[in-house]
Every structure is written in C-alpha cells, then in structure tokens.
C-alpha cells in the first residue's frame, strides 16, 4: 500500500470522525457545546486540507489553505466565546470585575 492510499484512508477516517461531532453540534444542550463542536470540526478540517494536499500531490498549495483555515477557526471561536462572555469587562482587563464586598 503506497502512501497516497494510506492518506486517502486517513482522510476518510477524519471525515467519519466528524459525524459524532456533528451530532453534538445538532443536539448540544448549551450554545457553548455547539461552538465547541464547530471549533473541533474546524481543527479537523485544517488537518483534512493537508491530507487532501498529499492525496492530490499539491501539498505546497493546500498547506496555505490549511494555515488560513486554522487562523480563521481560532479567530472565529475566540470571537464567539467573547460574545457569549456575559460579564466581560468593557475597558481592558486591569480592574477586577467583581470587587470584594468588604473593600468599601
């Protein structure tokens, strides 16, 4: 078995492992579960792009796609996390969000 066949099998296995994560994305009790599932699928997709590059013999091209996808995935999940962060401080993180009650 040559390496391209092996890479194809690895890609199919990655694709199959996305199915339970998609189930979690559809069912997930909280919104954060769904965001986490999207994040996991994004990471798997970045890996899958490298695998696709190896299968088609175009690694030099697909590596750039994978890099861009990893960057976008990170930015997207951070933005979603900050959006759902209810008590995020509005101006920098220097001062404590909830000062202790006996500080008066």
């Amino acid at each position, binding site marked *: 078995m040559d*390496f391209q066949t092996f890479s194809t099998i690895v890609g199919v296995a990655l694709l199959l492992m996305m199915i339970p994560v998609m189930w979690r994305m559809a069912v997930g009790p909280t919104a954060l579960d769904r965001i986490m599932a999207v994040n996991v699928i994004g990471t798997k997709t970045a890996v899958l792009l490298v695998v696709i590059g*190896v299968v088609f013999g175009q690694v030099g091209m697909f590596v750039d796609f994978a890099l861009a996808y990893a960057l976008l995935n*990170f930015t997207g999940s951070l933005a979603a996390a900050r959006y759902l962060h209810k008590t995020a401080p509005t101006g920098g993180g220097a001062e404590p969000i909830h000062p202790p009650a006996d500080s008066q």
Partner: protein
Amino acid sequence: MIFTIISVVLILAGLIFFLGGAVGLVRFPDFYSRMHAAGKGDTLSSFLVILGFAVYQLHDFHSFSHDWPTLLVILKLIGISVFILITSPTSTHALMDAGWEDEVKPVLEEGRPDHLSEDCDNF
C-alpha cells in the same frame, strides 16, 4: 523508508487521539468534561498528524542548495502544527471561561461543594 514508517506511526497515533476526542465529546456528561476531551484530544492529534505529514515530506527532500520549495512546505507544516498547539488550548480556555461566566452547571459527585453557585451568589 524510515521517514515513511515514522510518519505512518505518528499519523496513526494522531488518529487514535482524534477518535478518543470524538468519543469523549459524545459520551461525557457535562460541558466541562466534554470541553476537556475536545481540547486535549484535538490539540495533540492535530499536532501528531500534521507532524507526520511533515516527516513524510522529508522523503522528497534532497539538498538545502536547490530544494527550497520542499523545505518551505516542511517549515509551513511545522508552523501549522505549532500554531494549532498554541491556539487550540487558548480557544478552549476562552470557551470554558465563557461557560463559567454563563453559569453552565457542572455535574458533581454526591457531597461535593458547589463552588459555582457560591460564586454566583456573590455576584
């Protein structure tokens, strides 16, 4: 040949960790433990799989003097794997923090003190 064997071993190890992450994501009872499975499994397995493909590219690499494209691909693959190794725990931590502030309840053992409710009473 030796590069191919090393890369196959790395990729198979990565796939096993991916499988563990997927199973944990489906079967764990609450948000925090699911996050734990997803964060750790994804980080290590992406690192291993991409590193495996980087090792396989060494197979095509002959000399430093006139094989810059392959060297560039190897460096980019290592860059992606290091980038995922840094950013995946960061986004996991951000989501976990958002869940804590959103008062997502953990599943607790009997008799464990519920620190989350105490924290929320102080708000």
